[in-house]
């Protein structure tokens, strides 16, 4: 007990000394705080996000920083646990006193930190998907990924173009799947489409043939949509082929990554999903404003980390760039000024899409920023 206290006292002294030294410097660094799920079940989100933040903070610092000040990245790993996300957000705000937070890999982690961030009045750019994060609009909270609602809109619009109006829906019971399911049901009603079959599976299920058979036996189903995350959708895709189902098959943006193609193998052939242009940088038309940004990000990331680029890292790229832009525009790190600048960013072309923020829209993207891709010969092919 005494030993622990002594050690803590020692640590406090070191921290205090470090603080004193830092305040003695003329230009303090701009502190960018981040809490991400770098390890744990959501590590496929947090890992590329952290790598992206680290490499671009380095790059910006080499190029002279922002407003003549260096950037300092302070990050913690929340292990995908919502209450530790909240605690680390508190540590960032109260102990590290960061100027802006870019983080929150999952919707759960983001939402757990939101009440605290709103009270502390620190600008926060979330990297998580669900529509609840920015609807209703929260004063200090922004986000970079498209919402699941936009994904549902994009998928259903593509179905409608193909003359499909009756859908079989299979979704995971986790946060992503169940929020996606709610959004799909709402959008379908608005667009005058029918969800005739609606089944779910839990994250630990290893076989979904029962649910798919249920959909197959439902009369009138014209296409099947799977809203889910992680392993589940790959199993659904394999079962779909094993059952010999031939209806058009859609997945959500939750599995839009090359690793999904590896998991699902040849059974993914012919399925469609909404995704970031990052998966098909070279097939984008020359006049697409995003083409250059996307190609650059992919090249830089893959050269630096020697691993495949992922859409989730791109959310962090856009988050960081939006933060930098807002600080430059505000001309200071004053929270209220930065927040105001963030809210008025127009026409920022990022990897995820073109951002047009407004006081009523803290996401700034529209459904068209998703591209519809189809798997052909084991590769992504741009359809629309």
């Amino acid at each position, binding site marked *: *007990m005494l030993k*622990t206290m002594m050690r*803590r*006292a020692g*640590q*406090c002294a070191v*921290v*205090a000394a470090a603080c004193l030294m830092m305040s003695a410097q003329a230009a303090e660094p701009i502190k960018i705080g981040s809490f991400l799920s*770098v*390890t744990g079940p959501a590590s496929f989100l947090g890992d590329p996000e952290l790598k992206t933040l680290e490499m671009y903070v380095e790059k910006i610092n080499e190029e002279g920083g922002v407003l003549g000040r260096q950037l300092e990245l302070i990050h*913690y*790993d929340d292990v995908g*646990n*919502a*209450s*530790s996300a*909240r*605690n*680390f957000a*508190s*540590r960032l*705000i*109260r*102990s590290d006193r960061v100027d802006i937070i870019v983080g929150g890999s999952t*919707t*759960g982690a983001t*939402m*757990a*930190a*939101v*009440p*605290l961030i709103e*009270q*502390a009045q620190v600008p926060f750019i979330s990297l998580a998907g*669900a529509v*609840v994060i920015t609807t209703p609009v929260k004063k200090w909270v922004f986000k970079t990924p498209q919402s699941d609602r936009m994904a549902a809109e994009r998928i259903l619009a593509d179905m409608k173009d193909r003359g499909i109006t009756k859908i079989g829906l299979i979704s995971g*019971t*986790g*946060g992503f799947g*169940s*929020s996606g399911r*709610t959004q799909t049901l709402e959008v379908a009603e608005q667009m005058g489409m029918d969800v005739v079959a609606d089944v779910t599976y839990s994250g630990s299920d290893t076989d979904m043939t029962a649910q798919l058979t249920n959909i197959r036996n439902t009369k009138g189903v014209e296409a099947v949509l799977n809203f889910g995350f992680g392993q589940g959708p790959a199993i659904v895709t394999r079962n779909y082929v094993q059952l010999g189902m031939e209806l058009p098959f859609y997945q959500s943006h939750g599995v839009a990554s090359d690793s999904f193609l590896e998991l699902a193998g040849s059974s993914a052939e012919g399925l469609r999903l909404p995704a970031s242009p990052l998966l098909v940088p070279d097939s984008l038309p020359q006049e697409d404003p995003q083409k250059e940004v996307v190609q650059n990000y992919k090249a830089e990331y893959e050269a630096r980390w020697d691993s495949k680029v992922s859409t989730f890292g791109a959310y962090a790229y856009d988050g960081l760039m939006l933060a930098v832009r807002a600080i430059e525009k505000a001309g200071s790190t004053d929270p209220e000024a930065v927040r105001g600048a963030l809210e008025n960013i127009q026409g920022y072309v990022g990897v995820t899409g073109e951002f047009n923020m407004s006081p009523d829209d803290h996401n700034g993207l529209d459904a068209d920023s998703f591209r519809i891709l189809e798997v052909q010969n084991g590769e992504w092919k741009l359809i629309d």
Partner: protein
Amino acid sequence: MLNRFMQSRLRGLVILALILIILPAFLGNPFHYELVIQMAIIAATVVGLNLLVGFAGQISLGHAGFFGLGAYFTGIATGTYGWSSLPALVVGAVVVGTIAWLVGRPILRLKGHYLSMATLAVGFIIAIILNNERAITGGPDGMPVPALDLFGWELSTFGRYSLFGIEISGVQAWYILASVVLLAAVWFALNLIESPIGRALRSVHGSEVAASVVGVDTAKYKSLVFVISAIYASVMGGLYAHFQGFITPAVASFEFSILFITMVVLGGMGSTFGVILGAVVLKLLPQVLADFQELETVMFGLILMLTMIFMPKGLLPTLTAAVSKRMRKKAGGEA
């Protein structure tokens, strides 16, 4: 006089109170306060769990279920239905206590592994319900909880309050509240242990057969202490929900139950102050180890493993034994 006082069972309580009074001098910023407040709330829960595990010798692997249920009851009652906090906490405790009694009666007839498995199942069922009842609980994404209000005072960690003319910040007010709650929880537990109920419980721990032979109604006492520890968890869960401002079904998860049990075992089963130390250490480690990043989990495991190998009785009992041994040696040397 002083000697007699030091021998009494209130000695530990006074020391704990002194620590809580002195501690703010070492807390540098509001974040440190937040950590200590969480420690106090979790420690009080574990003190309740220790009554069941350490004294009655029954293992509960589903205690986070009751904690989560208390948290959600408070969150839903105050957030969705606009109750004030105090009735929400009290009614929540009654509801959770009743549930614990209903499930406790049959499962406490089970022994050993079967009892652990039954409590495990109860915890899982609660977590699944919280996860799936999206319309009421917000599902896996969780739900916001309004700030605590006591007698018309809204206690937010960002507010400023005046106490007897001294202005204090929101976290300091919460610190005082959490300290008082922890002291009350410990005081109640200590009294219970020294009461006839406590003696009956310890006899159940020693040998259930022997206890029933001498006329102890083992089933009654076991379910009583199960209910008491569930009420502890429920009230603390409610406070935790108010303090955090946001809850997810993770508060009722299996991992959280295991964390509670680990705190009891690490700190010292059957030692009320030991389990508080266990809670403090386990809450502090993730923050201290945060700087090691990838190695964090490895270090965490290593520390737990070493403690269990070299201090199998838990932190506090082993330390006290070592100290008194040395003192006796010293006294013996002088004589």
